[in-house]
């Protein structure tokens, strides 16, 4: 629920400063959180360039923010130790954008019970709710899954929950720290009148017959067909996994309808890029031949390319047979364009073909690596409890593995290990400032509705272990020997990560596991460039300047209005401050006193005037009577 008052709103592009005090990992996480805002809302962020109001993110004590734009020039937001988690940053920025906690909204008692005697002494005031003069729930239903909701253990004095949801199924839903919920997005977009986002472009699950405006080519040999199943597979689509009778469609290229080498082209609707880089993500199923392939093209429309050039971006070959697979393709398009999916029949006589579903296109960076874990439920009960990913290489050349720990119920742990690799002699050791982002993908068909769980760690080259070794030193020096499944020996360094990456309970929720498949997306970025001071500009004539010599008394706040500094004065139910600088105090009692005094004064004045009038009239009458008597000629007088 949001704070009432237009003055608390920020412009759609919020100026920010990342303070020098911030840890390196926090800096990367904050930038990732901004990307989530750009994908799902119309809120954007830009480095401060002198605007009157901006958010200064710094490493203070704890994680906190003010609510709304306080119009104080530099508004602080603390991302302290332990707060460098993407959903925590999202939470604090939602405060800054004008949102309170979900359970403080006026109707919360209809949805949750606060167990007052389980709350730490002196902390009960944290559980107050506020009426709709102070907060606005924006006509959106109570949201148990909000990233702004307290968890059930908030401020508990024992082990029993302080918040009990009226619907028991939501007990473990409240307090999620993964991503915005659908209602969070709805409310934010309503509050800021958003109708589009910066980086989202397209999402299609082929449930509607118009197939999201996608078009068949007339220059190919066959068409893609919208179907809900294919005899050779898949038996169902990826969006619903067959859970909904009468729905669940995908697009299929039937290889048996064409000869070897024939193609079927399916183009997206025309798209208009803003940022110049895109990530195409989709699920692909192969029930045909291992020699079939899917080509991804871009058809660009620009003045320079009159012929609407079709550019091949990627050839996807060796698609495994018999399961839905997640693919990412990086695009770099600056003109309006279509994405084109080109199915190509290869050798082999088998029936079936290629199928695509759950396409998402956004102007974001693709993950660098995808770890696809099949038959996930079987792993949960495995004796070792730990599973290592295949080895991957970062863009800088560092080799690494991810370790998933499934045995420490109820939690799932995830750790990052550097391992010995082919480039080690050319690399810098200890490994400096590589930020590793590990994401368990929520496989919701629409990228805007996903609540993927994402955590990051950063390699600090100065970090040491208890015995004085550098933690991120060369694995061949500080690691332990192990063997790949093919028998090749390698060295694995120490793991660094989270024993509570998420709970098994949450992992079973939403679409983290779909068809018993789990996807872990991995990105390893060099963030050395964030280890510099953000150039702070000279502020424009803003709140700081105009308000410097315009002090408001009695805790009034100075704001800019029509280019002038003005005071907004504090007030309560029966008192207020007023005057140009809030220098005068008023209250209801004063008003009554003034009203009564005025009435009495007016009465007294009127009374005086009346008395004087009566006196003067009587006096005048008296005088007139006397003079008339003196001038009178008496008749019939006696002599």
């Amino acid at each position, binding site marked *: 629920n949001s704070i009432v008052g237009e003055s608390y709103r920020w412009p759609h592009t919020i100026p920010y400063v990342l303070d020098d005090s911030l840890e390196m990992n926090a800096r990367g996480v904050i930038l990732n959180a901004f990307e989530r805002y750009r994908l799902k809302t119309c809120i954007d962020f830009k480095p401060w360039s002198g605007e009157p109001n901006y958010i200064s993110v710094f490493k203070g004590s704890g994680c906190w923010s*003010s609510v709304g734009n306080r119009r104080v020039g530099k508004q602080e937001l603390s991302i302290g130790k332990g707060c460098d988690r993407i959903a925590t940053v999202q939470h604090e920025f939602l405060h800054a954008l004008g949102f309170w906690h979900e359970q403080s909204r006026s109707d919360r008692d209809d949805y949750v019970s606060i167990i007052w005697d389980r709350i730490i002494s002196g902390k009960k005031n*944290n559980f107050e709710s506020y009426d709709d003069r102070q907060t606005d729930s924006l006509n959106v239903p109570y949201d148990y899954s909000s990233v702004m909701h307290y968890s059930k253990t908030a401020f508990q004095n024992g082990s029993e929950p302080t918040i009990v949801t009226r619907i028991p199924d939501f007990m473990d839903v409240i307090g999620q720290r993964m991503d915005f919920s659908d209602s969070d997005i709805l409310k934010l977009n309503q509050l800021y009148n958003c109708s589009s986002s910066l980086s989202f472009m397209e999402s299609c699950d082929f449930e509607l017959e118009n197939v999201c405006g996608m078009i068949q080519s007339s220059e190919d040999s066959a068409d893609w067909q919208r179907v809900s199943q294919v005899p050779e597979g898949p038996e169902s689509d990826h969006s619903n996994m067959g859970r909904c009778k009468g729905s669940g469609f995908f697009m299929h290229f039937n290889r048996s309808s064409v000869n070897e080498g024939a193609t079927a082209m399916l183009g997206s609707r025309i798209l208009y890029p803003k940022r110049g880089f895109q990530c195409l993500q989709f699920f692909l199923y192969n029930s045909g031949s291992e020699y079939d392939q899917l080509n991804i093209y871009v058809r660009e429309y620009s003045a320079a390319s009159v012929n609407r050039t079709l550019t091949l971006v990627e050839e996807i070959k060796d698609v495994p047979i018999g399961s839905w697979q997640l693919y990412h393709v990086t695009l770099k398009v600056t003109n309006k364009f279509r994405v084109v999916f080109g199915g190509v029949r290869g050798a082999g006589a088998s029936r079936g073909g290629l199928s695509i579903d759950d396409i998402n296109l956004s102007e974001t960076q693709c993950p660098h690596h995808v770890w696809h874990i099949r038959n996930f439920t079987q792993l949960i009960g495995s004796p070792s409890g730990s599973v290592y990913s295949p080895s991957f290489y970062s863009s800088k050349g560092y080799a690494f593995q991810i370790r998933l720990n499934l045995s420490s119920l109820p939690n799932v742990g995830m750790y990052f290990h550097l391992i010995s690799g082919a480039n080690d002699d050319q690399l810098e050791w200890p490994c400096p400032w590589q930020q590793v982002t590990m994401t368990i993908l929520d496989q919701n068909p629409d990228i805007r509705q996903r609540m993927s769980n994402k955590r990051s760690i950063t390699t600090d080259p100065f970090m040491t272990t208890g015995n004085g070794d550098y933690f991120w030193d060369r694995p061949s020096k500080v690691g332990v020997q192990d063997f790949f499944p093919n028998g090749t020996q390698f060295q694995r360094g120490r793991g660094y990560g*989270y*024993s*509570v990456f998420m709970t098994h309970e949450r992992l079973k929720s939403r679409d983290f596991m779909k068809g018993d498949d789990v996807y872990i997306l991995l990105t390893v970025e060099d963030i050395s460039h964030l280890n510099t001071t953000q150039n702070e500009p000279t502020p424009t004539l803003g709140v700081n300047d105009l308000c410097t010599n315009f002090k408001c008394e009695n*805790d009034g*706040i100075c704001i800019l209005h029509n280019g002038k500094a003005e005071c907004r004065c504090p007030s309560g139910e029966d008192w207020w401050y007023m005057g140009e600088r809030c220098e005068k105090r008023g209250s209801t009692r004063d008003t009554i006193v003034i009203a009564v005094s005025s009435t009495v004064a007016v009465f007294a004045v009127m009374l005086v005037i009346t008395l004087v009038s009566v006196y003067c009239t009587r006096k005048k009458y008296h005088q007139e009577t006397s003079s008339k008597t003196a001038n009178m000629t008496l008749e019939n007088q006696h002599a």
Partner: protein
Amino acid sequence: TPEIFDVDGGIDQDIFDINEDLGLDLFEGDIRLDGVQER
């Protein structure tokens, strides 16, 4: 198996737990109020 280190000491602390451990007395756990709001 090489050693593994937990970033957060093996405890999944929510925002309010972090602030509580630090002894911060913020409004609703993580909100900083200005003078007018405090009143």
